[in-house]
């Protein structure tokens, strides 16, 4: 290591440390009165009655700020589009062969339970911690696991990119459809109970109006999107190993 590099690293370290001091002083000046105020207090006291969802975070994400969530799922879509455009999308004919026989059998035994876990997280998103984003990520993990264990040829034949595209578009259409339903009824875009979605008994699986539908839509979008990102990147890796 030459002396110039060492000096530049030392300088950046000192700069980082002084910046950290500054940040810490800013944090120490925060008032920690430990009270929930403003909109959050309203959500905490009124969300179960206004949305029918027991999980307040879900109620905020998919009811009070559902338009925000729609924009955010568009961000995922844009990222997937960019990655898919950067990498050529072609079928892998000959690829990684996957892992050993014992691993394949073991994963075959575990696979239904992983899917069940994902479904449970998605469908009870309005009752317990979880929801569309987390469940969708578990679904994407499932496809990654399939790709690693059974080889990428398995994934490209059983879950080809056009199927994932279809799932992602279905999620987007479901989200927009739920929103437009409120618009047609006349209560506003993405309105929940006021648009006539049945509220159900609080605390049961079929409750909270449109929130379970939005959970499913977001899960489809996130799962298919992350899985497409992984597929595009593994494509490149396989390419390089082959050439």
């Amino acid at each position, binding site marked *: 290591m030459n002396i110039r590099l060492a000096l530049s690293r030392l300088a*950046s370290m000192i700069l980082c440390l002084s910046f*950290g001091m500054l940040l810490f002083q800013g944090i120490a000046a925060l008032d920690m009165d430990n009270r*929930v105020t403003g909109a*959050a207090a309203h959500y905490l006291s009124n969300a179960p009655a206004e949305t029918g969802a*027991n999980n307040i975070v879900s109620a905020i994400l998919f009811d009070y*700020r559902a338009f925000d969530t729609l924009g955010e799922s568009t961000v995922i879509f844009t990222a997937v589009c*960019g990655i898919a455009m950067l990498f050529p999308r072609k079928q892998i004919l000959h690829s990684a062969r996957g892992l050993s026989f014992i691993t394949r059998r073991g994963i075959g035994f575990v696979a239904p339970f992983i899917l069940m876990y994902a479904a449970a997280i998605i469908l009870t998103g309005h009752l317990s911690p979880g929801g569309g984003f987390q469940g969708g990520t578990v679904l994407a993990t499932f496809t990654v696991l399939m790709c690693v264990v059974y080889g990428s040829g398995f994934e490209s034949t059983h879950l080809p990119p056009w199927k994932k595209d279809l799932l992602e578009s279905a999620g987007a259409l479901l989200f927009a459809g739920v929103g437009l339903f409120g618009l047609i009824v006349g209560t506003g875009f993405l309105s929940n109970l006021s648009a006539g979605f049945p509220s159900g008994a609080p605390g049961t699986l079929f409750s909270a109006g449109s929130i379970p539908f939005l959970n499913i839509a977001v899960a489809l979008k996130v799962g298919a999107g992350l899985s497409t990102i992984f597929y595009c990147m593994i494509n490149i890796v396989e390419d390089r190993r082959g050439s």
Partner: protein
Amino acid sequence: MLMLGYSSAVVIFCTGLYTIMARRNLFKTVIGLSLMEASVLLVIVTSGFIPGGVPPIAPFRGVAVNPLPHAFTLTAIVIGASDIALALAFIVKLNKHYGTADIDKIRGLRG
């Protein structure tokens, strides 16, 4: 307890900043970026915490913590993940084009 959360967020942020400033490898830059992002999310989540609070799931048994930071963090995590995936995709392309991921050696416009 709150100060511990904030302090670790500051330490993680400075680690990420140092990684970005001192390392020339683009992969390490993205890792630093994700570290900084994680620390910001830690600050947001910590700011909603109330000592002795319960999770914001009705019916509450006690004082519930602030649910708003959780919702914001959830959106920010997903955006950050797709952000980082896009950055990594660009780096893979750059690496393929120039044969290196070193920011000092990637210079000039080339066809």
